[in-house]
């Protein structure tokens, strides 16, 4: 059974603030409903907390950090789930029930099973 990363692109905010409690409740409901197929995941702090790291000149070169996410977009990567689904149709159906899909977007991508 394939596993999919369901990457959530939604508004770039601090989800721990009390004003997002309703949305967190919706995520908890999703987590409970999909518990049987969730294999992992995480919620992320907003992109203003991100640091992007590059090594100039390849391996062993100078470490250059920039303040902020890899790409500035209106909707940001705010979290992801790993979902074990029978096929893409099931993954799409489940992704559509992730709250982020309702005002943002979910990118569904199969993960590589090394050594499978």
């Amino acid at each position, binding site marked *: 059974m*394939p596993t*999919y990363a369901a990457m959530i692109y939604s508004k770039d905010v601090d989800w721990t603030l009390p004003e997002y409690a309703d949305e967190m409740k919706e995520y908890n409901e999703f987590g409970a409903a999909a518990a049987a197929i969730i294999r992992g995941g995480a919620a992320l702090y907003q992109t203003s907390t991100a640091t992007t790291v590059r090594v100039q000149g390849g391996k062993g070169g100078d470490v250059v950090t920039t303040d902020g996410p890899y790409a500035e977009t209106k909707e940001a990567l705010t979290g992801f789930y790993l979902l074990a*689904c*029978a*096929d*893409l*149709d099931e*993954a*799409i159906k489940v992704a559509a029930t992730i709250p982020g899909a309702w005002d943002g977007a979910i990118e*569904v*991508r*199969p993960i590589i099973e090394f050594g499978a």
Partner: protein
Amino acid sequence: MTGADQDPRAALVRLVRDEGRRVLATLVRLIGDLPLAEDAVQDAAVRALETWPRDGVPDEPRAWLTLTARRRAIDVLRREAARAGKEAEAMIEPCEPPPPQETVSTEVGRDDLLRLVFTCCHPALAVETQVALALRTLCGLTVAEVGAALLVPEPTMAKRLTRARQKITKAAIPYTVPADHDLPDRLRGVLTTVYLLFTTGYAPTGAPRPALVEEAVRLTRLLRELMPGEPSVLGLLALELLQDSRRDARHDAAGAPVLLADQDRGRWRRELIAEGVLLVGEGLRRTPGRPDPYVVQAAIAACHALAPTWTDTDWAAMLSWYDVLLTVADTPVARLNRAVAVGELHGPAAGLAAVESVGGLDGYPLWHAARAELLARMDRIAEAQAAYAAAMALPQDDAQLTHLRRRQALLGRGGDPARTG
């Protein structure tokens, strides 16, 4: 191509393609790997085209192709299994020994093909990818032929198809007929893809590609066979046949498009019209409550097909059909076509008012052209000139541009340009 029935080689290619498609559908189910199944069937098809002209066509071409493709797939799986230390045969066991054609239930073959249709036209694939896959996998064209048909260089097409197959495999796009509650939506997607294939070939304004039209019609006929009585499939097939019935009259000797109003109706294909009209009737009988957009569009095409001349067209019926169409598929282009019918039924002034009330088509050359035609009929030549100029200033293909230029050149030369030529 149209010579397929006369040319024995072309007939053989057609037979291998049609049978190969069914063999492929079954093989995909058995081994669950579209790329491998496709390679295996391709290999079998090449062998068939090498040996059949010499040894004669086997009594059961499908069984021959199935056996050859299965052997090929087993070879590949064995090689891979040897590397991975797995047992290959187990994966293909279900059809050992190969059943002769008669014992393969047509029901099973039908379901396999339908699964393949829904896999190739899955909404997770880009529409242009679906069209390419339909040609490659459902119509059995080679990659080179698909590229030529869609005007994409072969290496680009090969890459696009490889990526598509990879996505089907890696993302596990299912090989199933959608459940009842998803079926209407998914079927609509399939029909959109098939109709896009048709219109790409039919090229309302550009140079037509008859081979694409033929593949689209064949594919639609296959869908009708797979889903008998499905009204939208009947409607799509009717629509395609009725449009295609005009193929010999749509262009003049120089290849320039000829307007419906000006076409020599004696050159329309009667047998396609007869079949199309019957299908429209069946489609309408099956959708008494909720009209189907394809059936209604086919009904409109049938009104044209049955009219002895443009002026004798039943414009009142036409207008009613457009009103029905707008209730189920309200698009600006449908509104424009309705406005043209208004112009024929109630005169150019009413038509112009109707055309101008259609919003959202400023960037559509044929909206400006429709205005120009109606203005010309009212002898408002300067305004017609300006409307043609606006139409020609928009991006479009050369054939349509040439056509508009010719219409514009006819302005003010006496009479009504829509009726001359």
